[in-house]
Every structure is written in C-alpha cells, then in structure tokens.
C-alpha cells in the first residue's frame, strides 16, 4: 500500500520524519532546568569542589595547596572523629529504630478508630514545626538536673532520683535522642498512618477470620506490606541523622568532653573553629562516602527494580 506516493504533501513529510532526540519532550526538559542545574551544579558541583579541596592544606580560606592524603590520615587518627562516627552510629541506630517503632506504634494506635484522633495527631506532630535550636534549648532545660525533671522528682520526695543524661558521657547520646525523637517522630507517624490507611481492609478481615491477634497481624502481615512507606521514612530519617548538628550544638555542644560529638559538628569545628578547611572537607567527604554507600542499595531498589511507575 503506497498511499503516500499518490498524495505527496510537504506538511506530511515534515510530520513523517522522526524529530531530533534533543527536541523531543522539550517543554519538560526546559521545566526541569532548575532541577538539573541544582542537581548538577549545586549538589554535584559543590560535592566535587569539596572533595577536591579535601586534598589541600586549606585553612581559613580555600587554597589549592596540595596535601595529598594528609587530611585523611589526620582525620582517621583523630579520636574525636572516631568518637563522632561512633556517636552517629549509636544515635543513628537508636534513632532509626526508635523513630520507626514509635512512629509506627502511634500510627497503629491512632488507626484503631479512637476518639480525639485529630487532637492526638496534632500533639504528636507539632514539634516538627519547631527548629532544632528550639528543641535543643527546651530539652536541655528539661533535662537540666538542677531545674528540670530530676529536680522536680526529687522535690516530690524521691531524693535519690537521678536523671542527668546530658552530663553523663555514657548516656549523653540518649539525652540527644530524647529530643531528636520528640522532634522527628510526628512526621513519621503521619506517614505511617497514611500507609496504614492505604492497606486493603480485606487483609484485616482475612486475618480476623484466621484468628490472628491484632498485634500479630501488625507484625506478621501489615508491616511487611508497608515496604514503600518504610522506604520513604528511611530516607527522611536517614537524611536527618546524617545532618545531625543543630540539636547537638543547642543541647550539649558536643560535651561533656567530646562524648556527644557528631561528624557534622566535627566538620564545622574543623572548618570554622580550627580554621582548617581541608580537614573539614575531608571529614565531609567521608560523610558523603558513607551516605552514598547507604544510598546506592536504596537507589537500586527504587529505580533499578521496577522500570516504570
């Protein structure tokens, strides 16, 4: 069938040609320019810049005076850095578990068709609206042994009561955790709640017919079904953990001693306290490396596994 030969038409010819790849979907590409710019220039560019300068002796000002791996050697021989990493690991582990467990538990409780759901939800979520500076300040105060909780309990008669996490190097990270969880669980609870609401009600019915208890249904059936919700939560919590800085500064300034130092604070102190940018950049490069190591499996799951959607 050769209809085109009988009716040649210039306009049709134009439409018949496969358009150039670059110009296909052009409005979308133009609309994404800000994203592309941010991703490539700001984040990628800034990262490369940081990595490059981590191999220099930059002090107060960035200078291209090469130092090889000196900054990294110094970094990994620094007790404070090791402590920072350990602290972040401890905080990260418990914060991750704590946020997920508390967030999920609260969401599950709120999902039980209770009265006053909106009130409880608001109470759990409002800390999210406050900055870490504020959070740190308030909790520092509540945990202050002379003024806060310990004092109040002692006044009530339990004179032996002792609760002073912020001044005890062994448990100071948990003092931070109390505040961190307070601030961050609300959002996760919201996400979990939304996820729970999205579960097919028939699953619940099936479990009841099977005689599975509520708690067991949550653990064995519902939680495994909420994978995407947990993935989103993990990204949010993870990003928060890596960036942990303001809270530490506001609550403990890294103390007592160096017992609540964290990598982001190490970076800041090195860069602006110690006026050793190279050291700060080396530390932040290491942080990035860790993030990427954690993120690659996630990115693979998100984008590698399924091709569309």
């Amino acid at each position, binding site marked *: 069938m050769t209809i085109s030969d009988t009716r040649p038409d210039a306009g049709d010819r134009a439409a018949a040609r496969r358009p150039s*790849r670059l110009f*296909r*979907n052009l*409005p*979308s590409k133009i*609309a*994404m320019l*800000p*994203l592309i710019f*941010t*991703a490539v220039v*700001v*984040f*990628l*560019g*800034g990262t490369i*810049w*940081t990595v490059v300068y981590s191999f220099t002796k930059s002090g107060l000002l960035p200078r291209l005076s090469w130092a090889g791996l000196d900054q990294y050697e110094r970094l990994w021989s620094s007790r404070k850095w090791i402590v920072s990493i350990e602290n972040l690991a401890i905080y990260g582990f418990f914060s991750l578990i704590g946020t997920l467990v*508390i967030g999920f538990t*609260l969401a599950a*409780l709120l999902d*039980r068709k*209770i009265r006053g759901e909106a009130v*409880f939800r608001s*109470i*759990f*979520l*409002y800390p*999210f*609206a*406050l*900055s870490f*500076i*504020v*959070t740190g*300040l*308030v909790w520092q*105060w*509540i945990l202050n042994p002379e003024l806060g909780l310990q004092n*109040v309990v002692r*006044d009530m008669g339990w004179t032996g009561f002792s609760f002073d996490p912020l001044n005890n190097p062994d448990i100071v990270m948990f003092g931070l955790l109390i505040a961190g969880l*307070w601030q961050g669980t*609300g959002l996760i609870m919201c996400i979990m709640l*939304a996820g729970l*609401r*999205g579960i097919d009600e028939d699953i619940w019915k099936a479990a009841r017919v099977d005689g599975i208890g*509520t708690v067991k249904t949550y653990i064995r059936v519902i939680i495994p079904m909420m994978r*995407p919700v947990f993935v*989103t*939560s993990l990204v*949010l919590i993870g990003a928060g953990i*890596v960036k942990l*800085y303001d809270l530490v500064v506001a609550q403990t300034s890294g103390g007592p001693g160096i017992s609540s130092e964290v990598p*982001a604070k190490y*970076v800041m102190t090195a860069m602006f306290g110690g006026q050793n940018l190279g050291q700060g950049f080396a530390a*932040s490069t290491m*942080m*990035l490396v860790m993030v990427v190591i954690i*993120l690659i499996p996630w990115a693979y799951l998100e*984008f590698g596994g399924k091709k569309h959607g």
Partner: protein
Amino acid sequence: MADVGILAATKAAEQPVAALLDGPRGPKPVRRFSRSNIIIYGTLFVVALYYALPLYVMIVTSLKGMPEIRVGNIFAPPLEVTFQPWVKAWQEACTGINCDGLSRGFWNSFQILIPSVILSVAIASVNGYALSMWKFRGSEVFFTLLMIGAFIPYQVMLYPIVIMLREAGLYGSLTGLVLVHVAFGMPINTLLFRNYFASIPEELFKAARVDGAGFWAIFFRIMLPMSLPIFVVALIIQVTGIWNDFLFGVTFTSSPERYPMTVQLNNIVNSVQGVKEYNVNMAATLLTGLVPLVIYFASGKLFVRGIAAGAVKG
C-alpha cells in the same frame, strides 16, 4: 420451597420473647474500660504527655518572672502571670546594641519566606510533574543526584555556594538567599510531588493530551487543581524549614538590618549573660515558632492527606 425460609422468618418475628431467650443479640456490649482500650488510651495519653510537656514548659515559663523561675520547679504553673518576657522578647531584647527584640527580624523573615516558599514549591511541583509524567532519557539520573543532595549537611556546602553566588553576582542579595533555599528544599519536595503525581491515573494525562493540552496546560488546568493536599505538605515543610533557618539567613544576607528573626532568636538564646533569662528565651522561642505552628494547625487534615498521597505511593 421458597416459602419455607419466609415461614421460618415469620415465626421468629412472631416470637420476640423466645428470641430474647436464646442468648446474645445485637452488638456485643462494649466495655468502656476494656483492657485494650485502657492500653490504647493509656499509651496515647502518656506519649501525648511526653510530646506536650515541652510546649507546656515553654508557655508556663514564658509567663513567669525570673525570681519565680529560680525558686520554683519548671512544671509549676505561674503564681503570678506576667507578660513582660513576651514584651521583652518581642521588642526589648538586645542584639548587640540594637534593643528592639525579635520584632526587628519578623518582617525580614517574611520577606525571605514568601518568595522562597512560593518559588521552591512552584519549582518542586513542576519538577515532580515532569519527572512523573514527562520522563525523558536521563531524568531519573538527575533525580537520583538530587536525592543524594538531600543527605548533604548544609554546612558542608556553605563555601561552594558562597563562591557560586559570588560568581553569579548574587551574593548578599535577597535573590541569592531565595535561590539557596530553593535549592536545598528541592530534593524532598520534588520527591513528594513526584510520588503524588505518579499516583494520579495515567489515563487522565493521556486524555488531556488527546484534548490537545501541552505540558503547561496539563499542569495548570488539570494537575494543579487536584493537588491541594500535596501543596499543603510542601508548604508546611518549606515554611518550617525556611522560617527556622539560621545559617543561610545570616550568611547570605548582606546587611544586619535584613537578618531574619532566627538571628535575633539565636542572639537572645545564646548570649551568655549573668543568668539566662529563661522566661525571655522561652517567649522568644514561642514567638519564633508561631508562624510554622499556626500554618501547621490551620492545615489540619490536609497534611495527612497530602502525606498519604506523596509519601506512601511511588
């Protein structure tokens, strides 16, 4: 044969007494204080206490005078309510030699907040829309890059950004600051918008294309009107983040007159003075947190709905 069932039914209806005798009927009586209810409400209540306590402490303390704070415990309600700390925090607290409190930064914060939020939500929504409906080769790569950006601590990026802005001639201008906020709010908001738009049926998009609507027409005429919940979420996240920001606000503003409110808050809270004026600190804290809190409480259910659409799917 069909009548047998009906017959049985009429019989039952005729014998209400007998029906009463044969055991339970109607809904299972609920015990108001059943064990599970006690556990559920008990837990919720205790946890709510943990969450509400700091706010309570802040409010109570901000209404006390310093002498009362020194002797009393932090949980006790104020014996003598005074609004002096609020007044002081708002218009008397000193920042260096300027003693006009938070009021100095309040409007500055708005001037930063409004363009930043509008621009970042606008850009993130377009990004999310393009990423979910107009994918092109490489679009996911850029998105992944952006997501890694979500994990970079802001402080690390400070110098590169200073240099970029300097090269662009935007350092110190409001535009520069707004752009920084837009860039750093972009990862999480783009993620939310992308997931939200991905949950909108593809057929709707196809129908609009057949109707001759292009990239922007579909966005503005079809998608925007159905995206209120996710906009609320993005709005809250951005308002919270930008309003509470200290580092960028102070670093990328060229004149102290234009510092955001958080700089004053920082100065009030972090100034080492004889005794910390906890009541003023708390009042300042509350005043600073007011804007995000109001927006959050006002949005109510929309937030959860938006989260449901933006975070769960995708």
